[in-house]
């Protein structure tokens, strides 16, 4: 593999990790808004308990992604920075509000309802703005003369909304599946029932929006649609992973009194589903970073920097992975935290 392919693969890995973590994180914010604490179900509380310690770490992955793109593809920064100025700046403003209120609510109870609204609303807006980068990169929405974004064209194009529907639906689907698993870990069957129900509804809907997006893509980015159809095999595997995970939500438990479903199996299958599909989407997007002006080969950094970066990744990950595992055990496994009620 060439440097460029290595670089885009690592970048892809970070995009994927952030997509999953971000979906769960922003989705939990949204569910926290929908389920208010005064109601009988503890679903909202479960969502917020997960969110409190994790959002900072999730946020670092976003910065990691930006820095990785700058480091690996410096020659893409000028066109990307100019083209994505508007959605990028909006994301920053919303993200700042969200993060600030996240911390403030922990310190001052009277801001709790403001926080729920801020975190819930931004939980839908930020992912929308992030997913909008996909149709922009697929071409046709950046003025070739000035590199500026054609906002009117972007907003009047049906494919934009298909991407949006797909993005939001995936976000809520993944977070519902995750929170179902988290509720099971917390042994809270009412919250589990709520999130399982949403996952069951959102799963097929997500699949439908994906098909719609590919269909509408034909008008705007024919090249990408054609490439995607060539990757059919991967998408088929992705669909199988989905069906397997979906069925896991129906499997019966040994103890008849417990709710149906194996949410851990389901969530792992869904991650696999998204991994396969986004790998296929990424492969179909090659060789372009931004169609039609920028390929990965043209924008990759020099070999000396590339080698140093790889070494720094290896060392950095070796130091951080134990930290992540410790973190996971404290907040996602430890019954004293998860099941606290």
């Amino acid at each position, binding site marked *: 593999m060439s440097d460029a392919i290595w670089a885009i693969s690592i970048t892809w890995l970070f995009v994927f990790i952030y997509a999953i973590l971000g979906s769960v994180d922003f989705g939990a914010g949204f569910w926290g808004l929908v389920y208010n604490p005064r109601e009988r179900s503890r679903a909202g509380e479960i969502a917020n308990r997960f969110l409190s310690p994790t959002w900072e770490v999730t946020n670092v992955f976003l910065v990691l992604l930006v820095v990785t793109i700058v480091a690996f593809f410096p020659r893409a920064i000028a066109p990307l920075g100019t083209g994505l100025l508007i959605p990028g700046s909006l994301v*920053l403003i919303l993200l700042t509000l969200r993060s600030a209120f996240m911390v403030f609510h922990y310190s001052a109870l009277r801001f709790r309802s403001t926080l729920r609204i801020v975190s819930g609303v931004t939980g839908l807006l930020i992912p929308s703005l992030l997913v909008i980068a996909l149709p922009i990169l697929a071409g046709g929405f950046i003025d070739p003369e000035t590199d500026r974004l054609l906002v009117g064209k972007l907003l009047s194009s049906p494919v934009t909304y298909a991407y949006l529907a797909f993005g939001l639906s995936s976000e809520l689907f993944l977070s519902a599946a995750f929170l179902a698993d988290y509720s099971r870990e917390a042994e809270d069957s009412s919250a589990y029932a709520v999130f399982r129900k949403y996952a069951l509804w959102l799963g097929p809907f997500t699949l439908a929006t994906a098909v719609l997006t590919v269909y509408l893509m034909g008008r705007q980015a024919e090249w990408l649609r054609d490439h995607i159809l060539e990757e059919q095999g991967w998408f088929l595997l992705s669909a199988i992973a989905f069906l397997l995970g979906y069925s896991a939500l129906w499997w019966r438990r040994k103890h008849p009194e417990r709710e149906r479903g194996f949410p851990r199996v389901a969530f792992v299958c869904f991650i696999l589903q998204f991994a396969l599909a986004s790998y296929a989407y990424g492969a179909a997007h090659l060789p372009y970073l931004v169609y039609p002006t920028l390929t990965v080969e043209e924008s990759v950094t020099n070999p000396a*920097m590339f080698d140093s970066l790889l070494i720094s990744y290896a060392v950095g990950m070796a130091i951080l992975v134990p930290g992540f595992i410790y973190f996971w055990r404290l907040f996602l496994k430890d019954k004293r935290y998860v099941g606290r009620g």
Partner: protein
Amino acid sequence: MDDLTIARTLFGSSLGFHIIFATLGVGLPLMIFVSEVFYQVTNDRRYTLMAKRWTKAQAILLGVAIPSGTIVAVQMSLLWPQFMEMVGEVIALPFQIELFAFFLEALFMSIYVYAADRLSPGLRILSVFLVAFGGSASAVLITSANAWMNTPTGFQPTEGGITGVRPWEAFFNPSFASSAFHVLISAYMTGAFVVASIAAYRLLRRKLSQSEIRYHHRALMMSLAIGGTMSLITAFTGHWAGQVLHDHQPEKLAAAEGLFETQSHAPLALGGIVDLDEQKITGAIEIPGLLSFLAGNRLDTVVKGLNDYPRDVWPPGYVHLLFNLMVGSGVLLILLSALAGWFGWRRKGDRLPQWLLWTLTSTGPLAVLAIEFGWIFTCSGRQPWTIYRFQRTADAATQAGDLWVWLVLFLSLYMLLLIATVVIMSSYFKRHPLAEELEAVVAEGNG
């Protein structure tokens, strides 16, 4: 304003805002760490209470530091795309490694804040140490990138591009060591003085119990000791950074000192306003020979003047003022901590006199201002370059228009956050008064 000025104003405001929180995010964990260690040594539970209350403040500040840092990181690519292209090619390493430090800080901050009750004392100290270490490492790494902008190395310019990139040479560029040391120590200094300000302010209240006075007095003396020591070291590292300027960025030193003619026995100008058109400095007190001595340790060191360089690469004249304000604040901080130390030693654990406490409340804001002056000085003093003698700021800026919309939006956001931070801080500490927590701690200690 033209787009370039707006871009600079916008990015400058983002940095100026972030620096306050970032600096405290480096300085406060050191204070928390020190008081956790003090507790282990003295077994006095008041120190854990100090650590606990400062951690609360730190967690609130982090709520602004993390997103404002995210803004700076992303806005750099959005506003200065051509500059970031060079960053990616030559100086990507410190940014990349900084992220790992950032991860370490975020992970263990969450652990320290949300899981404190489940950690053993050893693990608690380790967690807060890793938070402090992550913050300090971030400061050093980011300074490496900024130092590279001042003294770029590790590549050869060619027609329309660069070649022969040596990433580690860029990382350890000539001004890295002096700048990083200066930034790190001054952040420790600022964290300590902000704590000192608050403790001094609390001691001014009339109705205080004996145990509250002892608590605040201890916090005050501890933070003044750390702040005073750090401000002294900051002065030495600043002197070192000045000598690096003399060797590697002479026009910046000339502008900082308002020196137009190249000369030996160059005088040091204190105060005054530099007029670039008239080529003179008015209202300054000049100390003969001192600039030469500071720049090269000898009175006959030849210091370059601005006239040796073409007019269009001169930094703006106001950097002299910024430089003086930075140095002046630093000197004042050293004197104030020495004064307070002398009084504290004479009074042996009694409250300091009212007038001195009043004066000491100014140390925190003064330290923050000194940091701001310093950063504005180093970045305006580099103008018109964004990468010294390689890329002009005008050539680095984005081509996207209508930037004023973002300027208005982001400035409003910063105002909102500043107000929110103050409101949240005061409301939290009002609901958790020291007297109550102190009583609980003392009761626990006796029981």
